[in-house]
């Protein structure tokens, strides 16, 4: 029972922090579970449970705010899920230290992407006033509302963004994280989608990545059901609170929170493998 409460508590805390930055809680939960003694092969399935719960928890609020771009998410996710399955299948054959290093390097890359940019790329436009927030059907563009403005956007450099998403998927499948820490910067920094839309879309896609990876882990007999339930409950509640706070956060602050969390995760994970 104490382990269940501990896992639920960790999951709550990490899902809250993860939802703030749109990176999902597993990027923090998996390293935390490793620090407390679990191997990455045991921690990875619990990480993906946290990812799926975070995605589900944040979904209603983000849908109502018109922040999720489903077509962009599905496009990114087809690539990410394919590589997540390959990563999950390969994870039992790769030495644990390399799995951990791939997670740490991915987090470091995400931090650099996120912290490198300054200023606002997508600005409000009078021509779009009155346009409802959301995606434009049949395109990878859309509008979102922020601070009283309607902000139009259009995904650019889609091929390069999908390349980063493939890397995120492979790390996700191997290390049991949602990959949002790479997908969010892939969409915001590479594809020039507003960071809040990128974060919400990454949260949506991470739920699908988690399903793909978890089903592989179920097939491999690596999913502990009661522990998973504890992690799911903690993540559901933590992510709901995190998404509530994130909706009020300025884009620059959201980037700062995301970058800072990723730097700490990268330092802890890489430090433990040296």
């Amino acid at each position, binding site marked *: 029972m104490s382990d269940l409460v501990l896992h639920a508590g960790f999951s709550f805390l990490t899902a809250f922090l993860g939802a703030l930055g749109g990176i999902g809680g597993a990027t923090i939960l998996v390293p935390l579970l490793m620090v407390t003694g679990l191997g990455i092969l045991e921690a990875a399935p619990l990480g993906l449970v946290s990812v799926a719960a975070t995605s*589900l928890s944040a979904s209603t609020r983000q849908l109502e705010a018109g922040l999720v771009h489903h077509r962009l998410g599905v*496009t990114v996710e087809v690539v990410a899920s394919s590589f997540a399955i390959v990563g999950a299948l390969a994870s039992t054959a790769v030495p644990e230290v390399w799995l951990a290093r791939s997670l740490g390097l991915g987090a470091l890359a995400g931090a650099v992407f996120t912290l490198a940019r300054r200023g606002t790329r997508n600005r409000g436009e009078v021509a779009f006033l009155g346009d*409802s927030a959301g995606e434009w*059907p049949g*395109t990878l563009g859309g509008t979102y509302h922020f601070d009283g403005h309607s902000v139009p956007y*259009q995904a650019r450099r889609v091929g390069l963004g999908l390349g980063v998403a493939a890397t995120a998927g492979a790390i996700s499948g191997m290390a049991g994280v949602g990959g949002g820490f790479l997908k969010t910067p892939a969409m915001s920094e590479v594809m020039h989608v507003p960071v809040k839309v990128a974060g919400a879309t990454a949260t949506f896609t991470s739920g699908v990545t988690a399903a793909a990876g978890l089903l592989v882990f179920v*097939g491999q007999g690596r999913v502990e059901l009661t522990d998973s*339930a504890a992690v*799911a409950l903690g993540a559901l509640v933590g992510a709901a609170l995190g998404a509530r706070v994130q909706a009020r956060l300025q884009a620059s602050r959201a980037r700062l929170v995301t970058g800072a969390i990723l730097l700490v995760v990268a330092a802890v994970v890489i430090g433990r493998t040296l």
Partner: protein
Amino acid sequence: MSAGHPPGSHGGAAPDPRAGRFDALTSALRVTQLAVALLAATAIVVGSGPAAAVLGAAALGALVAAGPVRVAWLAQRWLRRGDRLYGSLAVLLVVLPVLGLVVSILL
């Protein structure tokens, strides 16, 4: 797959046809959140044994299904509206996790 302009993007008095398009999806996701939370909480209270495992499996099943079912809902919606490119991508995305499960069992 890249550029595009919003159909009728300029504001006006006409009601927005996109308003409320995700109401059904949002309600279904809210019910799923509640179901997963209840099942998981009960599993924690029960603690161990076959009952806890069954409750945990039910919570996990609903959690895993939520993402792909949402994509399936989007796929049928887009295909009905003639958006074949993204509809087909969404169908592919629903099939992928099942493919992963089958391959992992076979390996």
